């Protein structure tokens, strides 16, 4: 279970570049729940994922994950509980190392790394079987450098790596945004399979309305560093892409209104 209480984060405080990225996020995600996070650019959805992952320490608030208060844990310590797939296909794998070596690293996520041989037989057997299920023909190329693969293949492998040891939480940060439509579909199908099979608690950021309505059992929409809407259960099931577009329009109209109101106040009083 993931519980966020009053999360706040401001970047570059006190400067002209001040960004109030998170302005009090409260959220509880039950075990096995697959949550879609939507929002416009700058709404704080990626910042939310990074706050949970520990890329930075929040200014205030509290993060509880799987019975631990991880608010002050550094990123590498949280990795014991969290599997991640990044937006950039180059971020999640070590390009100059082989597929097998990348998986050997993932098989020790958050665990002590001793002087045992990394590419043990215990790993290679299951690895070949699992990679064969991708039907990408990669099971015979486990010794190839991962940098020689396409973005879609790398993202699929990163997803397998992130979930090789079952994580208490899986974070997917627009993980298909940089892929061509066909690869994106493949990776999305794989994500659904993996999440369903291991009943993973998942937080997924996306820009695709289609993915937002077809995936997950809960959808939250963020705006200005807060959770604006929260649909779950039947309400989430009923959501259609048009409904989401309407919600976005509403946010956009309000922002326009804010701007015109600000302009009016400025013309009146300044």
């Amino acid at each position: 279970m993931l519980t966020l209480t009053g999360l706040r984060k401001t970047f570059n405080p006190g400067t002209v570049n001040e960004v109030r990225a998170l302005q009090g996020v409260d959220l509880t995600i039950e075990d096995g729940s697959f949550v879609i996070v939507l929002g416009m650019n700058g709404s704080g959805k990626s910042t939310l994922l990074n706050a949970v992952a520990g890329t930075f320490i929040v200014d205030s608030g509290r993060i509880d994950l799987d019975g631990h208060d991880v608010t002050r844990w550094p990123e590498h310590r949280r990795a014991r509980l969290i599997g991640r797939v990044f937006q950039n296909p180059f971020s999640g794998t070590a390009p100059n190392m082989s597929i097998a070596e990348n998986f050997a690293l993932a098989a020790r996520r958050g665990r002590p790394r001793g002087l045992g041989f990394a590419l043990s037989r215990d790993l290679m057997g299951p690895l070949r079987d699992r990679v064969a299920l991708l039907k990408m023909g990669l099971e015979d190329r486990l010794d190839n450098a991962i940098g020689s693969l396409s973005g879609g293949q790398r993202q699929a492998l990163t997803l397998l790596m992130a979930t090789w040891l079952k994580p208490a939480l899986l974070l997917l940060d627009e993980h298909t945004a940089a892929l061509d439509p066909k690869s994106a579909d493949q990776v999305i199908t794989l994500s659904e399979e993996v999440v369903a099979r291991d009943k993973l608690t998942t937080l997924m950021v996306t820009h695709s309305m289609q993915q937002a309505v077809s995936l997950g059992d809960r959808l939250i929409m963020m705006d200005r560093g807060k959770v604006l809407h929260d649909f779950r259960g039947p309400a989430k099931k009923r959501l259609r892409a048009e409904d989401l577009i309407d919600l976005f329009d509403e946010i956009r109209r309000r922002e326009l209104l804010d701007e015109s109101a600000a302009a009016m106040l400025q013309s009146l009083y300044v």
Partner: protein
Amino acid sequence: MTLLVGAFTIGLILALLALGVLVSFRIFGLPDITADGSITLGAAVTATLCATGVNPVFATAAGMVSGALAGALTGVLHTKFKINALLAGILVMTALYSVNLRVMGRSNIPLMQHTTLGTWGEDAGYSLLGDRGLMVFGWRVGAGEIALLVGSFVVAVLVAVALFAFFRTHLGTAMRATGDNPQMIRALGANVETHIILGLALSNGLIALGGSLLAQYQGFADAQMGIGMIVWGLASVIIGEALTGGRSLGLTLVGAIMGSVLFRLLVAVALRWGLNPNDLKLITALFVFVALILPGLLKKIRRPAQLTTVPSA
């Protein structure tokens, strides 16, 4: 022939320097100038201990450990205090110059009168081969020289094999990934800072071991002996990569040893042909400069050629 055997032996000893530079520069991508100080530190510590009659094996180990500590210090400056890697190396290297003088108590310690791994090796050679030495390609080579050549070959191979094995363990693989993609390995739960500190300790430990063996081979330690060593190590690594052309771990390790030996041979031949020893470092620096920019230049030259081969629609 003596010149050739000597060049081979020094090349093999300085292969440890090349392997150390390989770890910091190629695996971690950090230009670690600590090398100039740590190679002298290894020599200084070993020479000082040998001169007081300490067992050479212990003296050599002490030299290596002190180099590892120096490397760890650079790592701490870089990771914990967020100092640029180059500057952190310069700081430690500069500090080590004074440390080395303190350790030695003077700028030069001769070891001719003392028991070292070098004298052990020569003694072993004489007892095995006798005073007459061996005929190699019609040239007579002294038993002592042969023994030291074989000894340094064994050390270089053992160290390379140990490195190869280490970089295939869980910890070693994670350390390689630290240089390849720190974001990825952090997300997989590795402490990147610790890995960098460990890696620089390993690198400088190897380099100090090289310095320690070099002092015992040439029979003295000198406060100036480390100047420019990082560039020599880089030159060896680059030659090695050109020789093996390999991106795989094993090939780069073998390449570093071959590169170091070939580099020493080239230097020996150039000096024999009348190259002024004072110009050696200038030429080495030029060589590394060319080797660093050559791949980019070749790409630029080839690109227009590729464009013309694209069929027009």
